[in-house]
């Protein structure tokens, strides 16, 4: 048995340093060019423009907008709700994926299709759907309009599929034999889940959670009808941005946008670090 990791073959190794980093074949050069232009036009330039707009009023205007109690309350509500929704999704989404992959029951295929409905619906329709059951004319006597619970439910609704759909394929790939091996080594069902299954799922759960979180802090459509938009109570960041724009306060809108952007980046990076930690500790 020989060492599996062999050093790369000679020529490739010796040519690299002299050719420098930017020696690319024509095909990959064109590919990289298209990729960069595409990414710049769609993402990087608009992002820079927003940051520029936020910075236009100077630091004091930027800080002033964000420390304004009403804006701050909206931001805080958004982030807190998004975090709660993400935690719930990570758990429930994994359970739903588990049920869909491991269990057999009547209507399993139907449920598998229904999971995607929150993705397929226009978000304003999602709001309408929730209102028809939990609105002022609720047949079950449960009115969520103009409450934080309502925001929570709406966010859960629109972010439900993310974790399910990222965990499901990974769960399908997991070998049942590894679980049987753990059992024959004496591991209980719970230990097997914690030490053998979960570590393989964590990257998928994290990826799904990141997507869900990003969606939750930016959600607009489904909240328009439900949140009621009461300052300090049920006003979320995306609706606050709309208010700034309606009040012709471009810089204010941009400031909130930049902060949301920062939060999203921080959370996604944090989740990634967390996932690596958990995977390594197993």
């Amino acid at each position, binding site marked *: *048995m020989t060492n*599996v*990791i062999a050093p790369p073959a000679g020529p490739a190794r010796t040519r690299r340093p002299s050719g420098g980093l930017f020696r690319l074949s024509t095909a990959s050069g064109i590919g990289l060019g298209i990729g960069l232009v595409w990414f710049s036009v769609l993402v990087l330039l608009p992002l820079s423009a927003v940051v520029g707009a936020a910075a236009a009023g100077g630091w004091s205007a930027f800080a002033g907008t964000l420390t304004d109690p009403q804006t701050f309350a909206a931001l805080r509500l958004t982030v807190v709700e998004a975090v709660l929704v993400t935690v719930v999704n990570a758990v429930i989404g994994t359970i739903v994926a588990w049920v869909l992959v491991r269990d057999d029951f009547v209507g399993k295929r139907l449920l598998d299709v229904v999971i995607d409905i929150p993705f397929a619906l226009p978000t304003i329709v999602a709001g309408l759907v929730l209102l028809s059951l939990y609105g002022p004319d609720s047949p079950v006597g449960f009115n969520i309009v103009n409450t934080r619970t309502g925001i929570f439910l709406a966010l859960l609704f629109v972010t439900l599929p993310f974790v399910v759909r990222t965990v499901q394929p990974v769960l399908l790939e997991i*070998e049942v*034999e*590894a679980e*049987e*091996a*753990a*059992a*024959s*080594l*004496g*591991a*209980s069902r719970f*230990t097997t889940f914690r*030490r*053998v299954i979960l*570590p*393989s799922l964590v990257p998928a759960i994290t990826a799904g959670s990141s997507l869900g979180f990003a969606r939750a802090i930016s959600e607009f459509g489904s909240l328009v009808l439900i949140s009621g938009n009461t300052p300090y109570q049920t006003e979320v960041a995306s609706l606050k941005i709309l208010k700034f724009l309606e009040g012709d306060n471009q810089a204010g809108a941009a400031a909130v946008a930049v902060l949301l952007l920062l939060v999203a980046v921080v959370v996604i990076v944090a989740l990634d670090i967390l996932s690596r930690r958990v*995977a390594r500790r*197993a």
Partner: protein
Amino acid sequence: MSIEVKGINKQYGDFVALENINVSLPTGQLTALLGPSGGGKSTLLRIIAGLDTADSGTVSIEGVDATRLPAQKRNVGFVFQHYAVFKHMTVAKNVAFGLEIRKRPKAEVAERVDELLKLVHLSQFAHRLPSQLSGGQRQRLALARALAVEPSVLLLDEPFGALDAKVRKELRDWLRRLHDEVHVTTVFVTHDQEEALEVADEIVVINEGRVEQIGTPDQLYDEPANDFVMSFLGEVTTLEGQLIRPHDIEITVMPQHDDAVQAVVSRSLRIGFEARVQVLTDNGEEVTVVLTRSHARHLGLQAGQTVWVRAAQGALTVPSLRAVPAI
């Protein structure tokens, strides 16, 4: 007796996987469950391990009735065909798993892991991930992991089935030597008769859910209980309605014996050191004869030539009852 299986039955719907299986395996022995794919041997192994449950019958391990014990409590080491290693754990962590579950002190775990990795020659790979190992190395890792908990029996389900021929042969010899060193009661499932004959102390031949014969490799080869065992343990051909090994047929170019049958050579083929000759007897039987290359050259056999064939003295023959698998 280390493993005692009594009256095991198992059905999957209409399909009978195992039918009234009775086997007892003495402590310290290396046993092969041999048979064609789908014959029920893996199912039996999984029932012994507690990974499957029988419809009826009992399993006892080391004198303890294990029929209702879950896999976790049977203290059985199990090795799978496709390794089933924990992909996200290093080699050392894989081996340590069973010991950590048993909450052994850290120092003891480290020491035992060290010892086992030495035993399976993987010491220098302790901090690698399984994905960085070859198939043979992964299977040795799986073996070390199973041995770590000092199981009362070690069960291997087609352990070398996923490996290429050369590695398979190496690991097979190695398993035999390992068993002579460790002496744990071992049962392995295989469909490769050569593997079973070479490695096992005792072979249990299983076919269509039933035990066909139990015995040492020599017993099975020399005194097969029936035509199935005979044909499964080595190449066979039919001569005058009897199953016989092709190398047990005497072939002459002149009618020297009264009991010889006249035949015509239809094909002569040389494979390495041996020659395989197909002859068609006067009563329409296709007979395969294997002889050494020099003997064949001496006889100067050619297609179309008339020859005489008969069972050599002391040749083993079994009446042909069932259809012989095509060779």
